[in-house]
């Protein structure tokens, strides 16, 4: 079983988001970058599968050299090897295209991504990538088991769950419940230093979008406090003033 796990390098969830260059660039000053939490679940599940059934897990990232601490961490957690495609991850289309170009030469049985990256919130790479490779895709999976070349998964649907079965190869994207993330141990961290991290140059140059600017949400006008002993007034205000109920 050969599994490819797609990794995004994203700002920690506690980051206070600000922008520079006239609101055209994300301000990375003082920001801690981490493996995208959903990708970390995908990686952990991939390791659980190969530990039980044999096989290898490759982590892949489209990013510049500053993403390498997160990529090294995937090796420390247990990935066998890693690939970095040396480019700024412009948008979901570009990232999917780069990963597809690499995956075509390697014949992976299973490709896992996170449900979305917590910075760009696209949630599109899995579907784009699967289409580019001509294989099925199942998004927002909360479980996956593999037996005799067939994956059985549960995915979130609006208001419920769907059980899906699919012959390998396929692309699936990880939703929260998939598994619990692993903290790398000292042995893993030592081993990661000597595991292969291959840097690959970009293929193709189809540009489909460009981010032209950012904006922070407007600050709230201030909270209207309701005295605790008149809490029932809340319902009246929501009905007559805010008109939402």
């Amino acid at each position: 079983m050969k599994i490819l796990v797609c990794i995004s390098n994203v700002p920690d969830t506690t980051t206070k988001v600000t922008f520079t260059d006239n609101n055209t660039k994300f301000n990375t000053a003082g920001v801690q970058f981490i493996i995208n939490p959903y990708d970390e679940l995908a990686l952990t599940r991939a390791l659980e599968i190969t530990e039980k059934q044999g096989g290898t897990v490759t982590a892949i990232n489209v990013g510049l050299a500053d993403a390498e601490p997160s990529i090294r961490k995937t090796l420390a957690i247990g990935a066998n090897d890693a690939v970095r495609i040396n480019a700024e991850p412009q948008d979901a289309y570009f990232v999917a295209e780069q990963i597809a170009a690499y995956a075509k030469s390697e014949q992976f049985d299973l490709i896992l991504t996170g449900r979305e990256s917590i910075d760009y919130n696209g949630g599109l790479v899995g579907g784009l990538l699967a289409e580019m490779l001509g294989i099925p895709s199942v998004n927002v999976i909360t479980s996956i088991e593999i037996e005799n070349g067939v994956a059985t998964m549960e995915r979130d649907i609006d208001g419920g769950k769907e059980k899906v079965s699919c012959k390998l190869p396929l692309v699936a994207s990880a939703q929260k419940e998939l598994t619990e993330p692993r903290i790398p141990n000292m042995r893993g961290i030592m081993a990661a230093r000597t595991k292969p991290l291959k840097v690959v140059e970009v293929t193709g140059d189809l540009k489909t979008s460009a981010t032209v600017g950012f904006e922070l949400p407007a600050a709230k006008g201030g909270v209207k406090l309701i005295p605790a002993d008149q809490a029932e007034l809340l319902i009246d205000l929501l009905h007559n003033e805010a008109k939402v109920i």
Partner: protein
Amino acid sequence: MILVYAESIDGNFKKSTFEAVSFAAGIAQTNGVHCVAVSIGHVEDAKLAELANYGADKVVAVNSSKLAAFNAEAYAKAFANVAAAEGATIVVVSNTYSGKAVAGRVAAKLKAGIASGVISIPNTSNGFVVRKTVFSGKAFADVNLTTAIKVLAITPNTFDTHTFGKTANLTTADGGLSDADFISNSVEISRVTGKIPLTEAELVVSAGRGMKGPEHWGIIEELAQVLGAATACSKPVSDMHWRPHSEHVGQTGITIKPNLYIAIGISGAIQHLAGVSSSKVIVAINKDPEAPFFKAADYGIVADAFDVLPKILEAAKKLKAAN
């Protein structure tokens, strides 16, 4: 021509589908072009005709027994085939789980630039720029799509539905599918019935650690039921398994933008606020006056939830009884 994916569940369209159709029809009207809605799977003609009311000039229904259950590969192929046949230049879907599953594949097929989580109509004064939420609601990004065909996945509960009152022009298409397009199979679908799905809810009652334990959720559920709201929770609450993961809103959970979000006993960590800050009206109930949630809220009550919830529930019941 603007093409819109009319997503259905068990033969019914959701409000988010009508929002998408109205959104697409509005752009079509501005540009003097047609709006075509595509329905995949079985939907009765009377329901298909509703799409015309919300703005579709033409409705293309693709149906076969194999399309009864959602399948990303087959749905995307059928949809992209209609897009090509109709000469679509803008493709609109709802930013739902299944909408996004289709959108990415369609974009790759059409070599189209794609933006998800879209919250604005396109600004074409300098390119084709749409606004989307990023950092799970902590900020917005303006994205210029530079390809001939564009795919937009629009955020539910963001755009109003409009009644255009057009007469339905219903047609069918076979979607150009073969057995090879059905590799994945839907085995079983289970939906929670009688509860409003969080992702679609206009009103949300959410609670956190301040509730002290899962056994105290009865009043939260009751308040939600009286208001016709969905229930949600904070990350610690779902991590401790007091509530299911599907209720966790925040940066690593679900991002929602209901008309009303009531946060009870949730302090308002930056990750939580990210997931709910786009809500139109926010109410914070917390006994700590310094809780960060009060800075993000429109209405606040500084009190122990257990003291004020019975009064609020009572008032809500009275309001509902009177209306």
